[in-house]
Each structure stands twice: as structure tokens, then as C-alpha cells.
């Protein structure tokens, strides 16, 4: 009998897992995909929102501001890319000035410090590629960017290193509460029992809740499509550029990523199939043309990839967090859409505390809250490179030329705690295949390394788990 089962290894599930690892407990994370961070946690804007946007008094506002303040230290402890780059909310009309002021006031109410309203010219002095049509903007210095999948992986690895177990390719089909108050979680592969359950199932969190609670929930998948630009165009934006919401829509953002690309998006379309993450022609065009309002010189030829993710939109609008009244021992992190990534660390803290209190768990003395990430050759100084190759000559063997990823890093990605088992896992951990050629050159070599170090045949190497094998067989 486990103390706790966490359903879902997205950023929220992994943040909860890492916080629970602080207590003497047996914790299992169940994930339906082949890796952590395979849903919305890998396909979002990667913004650590300062917290001016959410309505005062909501859980979104509360957790946003708290989560945002946790990121700088977390990024150090867990060694993942985070940068406070500031943000602008761009206003394109005279009528918008009033709304901008409202946003400013809202920020003050939410406890966001340092915001200031600037004129269009002042904005362009700081961000020279911003459109001439921008008349004013709210400048939010506390806004930041994070690599969302690397943060999730970091939470997960650190949880794992502190004893949390992970089971992948487990799709939860049912959750049953027994008479003795314990839970049985049924998946497509088997059954798992625990004293408590934390529901972090993203777009499917309503279904999980509805298995055990009489208080029904409804989550709508709200799809967001993105395009990503070559690092060569990274100069186009230093800060994150939001658009002031208008009657025409919420607008899209243009932002640098922590790795120096430019991300553009997201669109927002409610869809019926929660797992439908294909990109669409219309969505991509919309994201791009809308973003061009902020930065008119955005080059279409600079696009290197597109992707989409589905936000878990709760129809009531706010996060649903905490224990279910009618089902003691069952905890929800439901409807965690934007600013969910920002909020995740704070949500993790509170939910873990609730679970610990419910079970009477004690804090461990031997919890190690630090984790070392993969040493990235690309970001080392020359001195560090010399040293790295001396220690491990495979640091001298570049596999992914576009992102300058070496064989040593790819092997590390496979062999470390909760290591990558497929090509997408390698990509998210090392960036091999994420550059401008989009894995054209490095695919065969990376496949070889994955095959060798996971102990499978080349023909069994997958892009993202069973059913996504890259090869159909050997040549006859």
C-alpha cells in the first residue's frame, strides 16, 4: 500500500512529487506517455508570469504570484534554464490606455512589484523591433521565461532521486475508493493501491475526479498552436511581448525562449478531442499574422517548427485545488491552465502539505533538494570545454551540429535518473534535434546511442514510445 499515487507527470504532477519527496513516504507517479512532460507541459509559452493578469482574489492570482517568486531559487537548486527577461503588454489604441491602467492596478492588487506604463517610443527604445503602431505598454520587469519541459524533468529527476517511483505508459481507466478509505487506481496495464491520490491529469483531470467524486467537473481542451523561429532571429525580442486583450481576442505573444529562439503563439481554440494536438494550417497562419502586429518584421522564412498543446480549461475559470469534500484522501489539481506553469511549484508545495497532513507524514532529514542537470557543451566557456573533454572525451564529439550537442550529453540523458528512452526525450533533455535542421543530420547517430544505452535494437527505437518506431525494419 503506497502512501500516495500522483496521476500525471506534467509540471504539476512532478512538482507535487518533488514536494512530497520531502516527507517519509512511498509515492508513485503514473503517466500515460513514455516520459515526463509529454502533454501541455512541453507545449506552452514557457512564461513565468509576474501575476498582473489574473483576477485578484482567484486561486490563479494567488498561486501565480507565489509560484513566480519560487522560480529563481528553484532554477538554481534544480539546475534548469530560467531567466527574468521582463515583459510588455502592448497596446495598439487610445482606448486601450484605460485598460492598460486597469491591468496596472490589478498588478498592484495582486502584489506584483515594479510595473510601469510606458509610451510607444519608450517601448521601442527598449525593444526596437516592436511595431510603430504600439501607442503604449505596461512594462512588467518581474516577468520571466523558463524551459517548461526541462523544469518538469528537473522536478521529476529530483523526486526520483529522493525515492519517488514513476510508471510510464499507464493510462488510468478508473479510480475506486474502498470501504477502508484507500484507493485503487486501475490502468490499462494493472492496478495500484494507495492511501491518497493526487489528480494532476491535465486535460483529463475532470474524468479522474469524476470517477470518485460526486462533485462533477468539466475540463475543456483549449488548443494553443505555436511557431518557433531560428535562433538567428533571436534579436527580434528581448522581453516577452504580450498584446493587450481586445474585442478581437486575447492576442498572441512573441517571446524569446531560454535557449534563444523566438516563440510565437498561442492560438486558443476549444476542441472536442482532448488529445488532438495536430497543428492546423489556419492555426499557424493565425498565430503568425497576429504576432506580426507586435513585431512586423517577423520572418516566415525563420520558422523552424510548429507545435501545439492543449490547455486544461476549467469551465468555471479558476484552478480547483485541494482535497475533495466528499472523498477524503483524494486531491485535485484540476483546471491548471495558464498561469499553471508559473503556479506549479506553489501548487506542489500546498498539495504535498495537504497530503502529508492527511497521512501524518514526517519531514525527512535526508531529503536532497538539489539536482545537477546535464552539462551542456553549447553553453560552456572554452575553459570549461577543455576541462569537460579532459574528463570525458565524448564531450569532444559533436552529434547535433545545430545546437552543438555532444555524444557525452546524449549518453548522460539516457543513463541518468529517469533518463530518456526515446528520441523526443533526448531532444527535450539535450536539445539534439531541436535546431534549425530539426534532427535531419543527427537522427541516425542519436538513434544508435539510444539503442545502445537502452539496450534495444535500432528498429525498436521510438520517437515517443511504443507505436512510434522510427524504422520499419532492416534492409533486406
Amino acid at each position: 500500500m503506497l502512501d500516495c499515487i500522483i496521476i500525471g507527470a506534467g509540471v504539476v504532477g512532478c512538482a507535487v512529487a518533488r514536494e512530497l519527496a520531502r516527507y517519509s513516504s512511498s509515492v508513485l507517479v503514473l503517466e500515460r506517455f513514455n516520459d515526463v512532460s509529454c502533454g501541455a507541459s512541453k507545449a506552452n509559452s514557457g512564461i513565468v508570469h509576474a501575476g498582473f493578469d489574473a483576477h485578484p482574489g482567484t486561486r490563479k492570482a494567488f498561486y501565480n504570484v507565489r509560484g513566480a517568486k519560487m522560480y529563481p531559487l528553484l532554477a538554481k537548486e534544480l539546475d534548469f534554464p530560467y531567466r527574468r527577461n521582463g515583459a510588455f503588454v502592448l497596446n495598439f489604441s487610445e482606448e486601450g490606455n484605460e485598460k492598460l491602467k486597469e491591468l496596472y492596478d490589478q498588478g498592484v492588487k495582486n502584489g506584483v512589484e515594479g510595473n510601469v506604463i510606458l509610451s510607444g517610443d519608450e517601448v521601442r527604445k527598449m525593444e526596437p523591433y516592436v511595431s510603430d503602431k504600439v501607442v503604449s505598454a505596461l512594462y512588467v520587469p518581474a516577468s520571466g521565461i523558463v524551459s517548461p519541459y526541462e523544469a518538469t524533468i528537473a522536478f521529476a529527476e529530483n523526486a526520483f532521486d529522493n525515492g519517488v517511483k514513476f510508471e510510464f505508459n499507464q493510462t488510468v481507466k478508473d479510480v475506486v475508493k474502498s470501504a477502508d478509505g484507500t484507493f485503487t487506481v486501475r490502468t490499462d496495464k494493472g492496478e495500484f493501491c494507495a492511501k491518497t491520490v493526487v489528480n494532476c491529469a491535465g486535460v483529463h483531470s475532470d474524468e479522474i475526479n469524476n470517477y470518485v467524486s460526486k462533485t462533477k467537473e468539466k475540463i475543456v481542451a483549449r488548443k494553443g498552436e505555436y511557431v518557433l523561429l531560428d535562433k538567428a532571429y533571436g534579436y527580434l525580442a528581448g522581453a516577452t511581448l504580450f498584446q493587450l486583450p481586445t474585442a478581437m481576442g486575447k492576442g498572441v505573444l512573441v517571446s524569446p525562449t531560454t535557449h534563444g529562439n523566438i516563440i510565437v503563439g498561442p492560438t486558443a481554440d476549444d476542441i472536442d478531442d482532448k488529445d488532438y494536438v495536430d497543428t492546423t494550417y489556419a492555426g499557424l497562419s493565425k498565430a503568425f499574422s497576429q504576432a506580426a502586429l507586435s513585431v512586423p518584421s517577423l520572418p516566415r522564412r525563420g520558422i523552424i517548427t510548429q507545435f501545439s498543446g492543449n490547455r486544461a480549461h476549467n469551465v468555471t475559470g479558476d484552478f480547483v485545488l485541494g482535497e475533495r469534500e466528499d472523498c477524503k484522501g483524494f486531491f485535485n489539481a484540476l483546471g491548471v491552465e495558464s498561469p499553471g506553469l508559473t503556479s506549479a511549484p506553489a501548487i506542489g508545495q500546498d498539495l504535498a502539505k495537504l497530503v502529508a497532513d492527511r497521512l501524518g507524514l514526517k519531514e525527512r532529514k535526508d531529503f536532497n533538494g538539489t539536482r545537477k542537470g546535464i552539462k551542456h557543451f553549447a553553453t560552456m566557456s572554452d575553459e570549461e570545454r577543455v576541462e569537460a573533454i579532459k574528463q570525458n572525451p565524448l564531450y569532444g564529439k559533436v552529434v547535433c551540429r545545430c545546437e552543438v550537442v555532444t555524444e557525452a550529453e546524449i549518453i548522460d540523458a539516457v543513463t541518468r535518473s529517469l533518463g530518456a528512452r526515446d528520441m523526443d526525450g533526448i531532444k527535450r533533455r539535450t536539445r539534439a534535434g531541436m535546431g534549425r535542421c530539426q534532427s535531419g543530420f543527427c537522427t541516425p547517430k542519436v538513434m544508435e546511442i539510444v539503442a545502445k544505452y537502452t539496450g534495444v535494437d535500432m528498429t525498436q527505437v521510438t520517437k515517443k514510445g511504443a507505436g512510434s518506431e522510427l524504422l520499419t525494419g532492416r534492409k533486406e
Partner: protein
Amino acid sequence: MDKRNVVIIGGGPAGLAAAIGAYEAGERDILILEREPKLGGILNQCIHNGFGLHTFKEELTGPEYANRFIRKVKELGIEYKLETTVISFDKNKVITAVNEKDGLIKIQAKAVVLCCGCRERPRGGINIAGCRSAGIYSAGTAQKLVNIEGYMPGKEIVILGSGDIGLIMARRMTFEGAKVKACVELMPYSSGLNRNIVQCLKDFDIPLLFSHTVVDIKGEGRVKSVVIAEVDEKLVPKMETAREITCDTLLLSVGLIPENELAKQAGVELSPVTNGATVDDRMMTNLDGVFECGNVLHVHDLVDFVSEESELAGKCAAKYVIGGGFEADGGTKVETYGGVRYCVPQIIEHNDDYEPFPLKMRVSNVFRNVYLRVYADGQLVAQKKKQISTPGEMETISLKAEQVEALRKAKEIKVGLEENK
């Protein structure tokens, strides 16, 4: 820091020929840096024949063609480092490279020849919507998997784009037992060589659909189908013509992009048309002593011309070193008109003691019954009659000594296409 006279970045066909060119011009301190475990570059995976018709007057496979150059480089005792990746390059011609054995090395070069080749445009570059399943490859990646690694990337194939690698792979996949269902080309013409369309598609009854594109890719783990549609004159898909083709693989052959990342780092000026450097007739870029040739300069159809161009670049790099630099005498920019998209070299130097050179160009559309003409200060210097000129085939105008002479003296040079009236 190591000091070298001529450093050649890239040991593919361009780098090999540049090294030989430099040697033959009298330079002995030459170093080739190659990231792969073997010299020869992309030729190693091009196991089909058709290489060397111009250079050797015989049909060779890619590896055979490469080996002739590799053998010569070895015979001449030209130094090379394999599995060595250049990670940075600056305007002072300092190269930083890494490998397992030497660790991180810094080299101060007197002359650098950039022979970095090109990469394939990925799916993202053309905005094809749909799933992100396994089974979407650029044609060159599939070629490597099949020809070098010995694996099949798929069984039922649709190819988007009719670039040469795509066409070659249509035939290769068919030979290996896969079913190639269609080759879909956005433009009303192919960007590949006509001989490849005949020998790789027509001979195997593989349909080539012009003015079509892929509008959706369906699948979860693996690609299950693609949706193709006809496009209008503005290349916008006509969705009413959409139809689904079942397949497990989509190969992309949608263009090659010169790999000028190192060049950009150093501040080499690039042409927005070729995506390669702007060079003069000595193949020198705007950076003194930095030369560029082969597919990193502009994408070629035939390796023979890569070799020819690179040999010239290597020779000039050697002359640059031996002569202690070039005397700057300025040059005249080559302007293009009437359907000629670009011309390499882009600048012709006024000094007259340099090697002779050809003019290489591509046209923007399919033209029939035309003349390619070269004017110096309004005077016709050279011309070439073409029954047909297509974007898929590079045009070359070879110049005789007196024609070169005329261009060197000119204050205005124009290269263009005119109707045959």
C-alpha cells in the same frame, strides 16, 4: 594557438577539391577539418551513379567520385582531422574546433575556405500542418538510414518536393521494396534534374503531381496518411481538391539551405538570394582571406561543378597566402535581370592576374527559347542559347581570356535572360 596557412572547413567534395587546388597552386601548409569519421561528405551516402560525367568523363557512384579526390589528398600528403567539429569562427580567422583526441583546439589561419555544404529544409520551414508522428523524414536523412545504416525508414512512401535527393530516394526506396505512392511538387515544374525525373520516377511509374502540396499529415505514433491538395497560381491550396493518401512515411525534399552559421558568426556578408556568401571571382567573401565554395556558397545540382568551383577557391586561397594578401583594386558588381535570379561570382575584380572563372546562375522560372547574355558597359561579351532553362538546372557561362578581360575592365556588368527574337 596553432598557426596554419590554409584551413579548409569541411572535407566533402568542396573541401577536398579546395585542398587539392591550394596544393597545386604551391601551398603546402593545408589543414582540412571534417566532422564526420570519413572524408567525402554527403557523397558517401549517394550510392547511385551519375557523378563525374564532366570531371572524369565517366559515370561514378558518389563514394567512387569522392574516393578519387580522397586518394589524391592522401597522395599529396594534405593533412586532415576527422570527427573534428568547428564550433566557432571569427573575423580574425581564428577557428575553434573540438574532437575527442585533441580536445579544444584554436587555430589562427592565414586563409580559410568555408566548405560547409548545405542542409535540408525541414518540415517547419514550409509550415505543413498535422501530427508530429514518427515517419516524417527529410530525404537525405532517409538516404543515410538506408544506404549507410542499412535500415528501412518506411514501407509506403509519399515524397513532398521534387528536389534531386527526393527523386533519387523515390528510386532507392522502390529498389529496397517500399511502395512510393506519389511525388508531390508545389511548383508547376521540378527543382530536380530532368534526368532524375525520367530515371527515378517515370521508369518506375511513380506519379509526379505538379502544383500540389501536402496540407495535412495524419497519425498518432506513426504517420498513417497524408492529405494532398492542388494549389492555385498563388500556391494557396485548393481545399476542395484535397485527397488522402495512406502511407507510413513522408519524405521531404523541399530545398537545401547553405550552412552559413559559421560564416555569419564571423561576419561574412550573405546574399539573400543564394543564402551563401557574396563572393568575388576569386571566391573571396567580404572578409579578407575568407573564401567560400560549393554548396555553402550556392546549391549546386552536380558535384562536378562543386569540384571545379572549389578548386578555384583553393587556388585563390593559396595565392592569397603566398602573395601575402590580395591587392585591393575594387571590383564591379554583377547585376542580374530578366529572370536570372543570381549570378556567382557577384563581384568581378579589376585586377587581371587572377584565375579565369565561369559565371554560374539560376533562373526564376521555366523559360523556352532564350539567350543568357552578359554585358560589360553595355557591350555584349558572351551569350548562350537555351532551348529551355529551368530553375532546377544551374546555368554556366564559360568565359575565354578576352571575355574575362572585358569584364575586368567594365564599370557595369549585367547578366540576364532575353527572349530569342
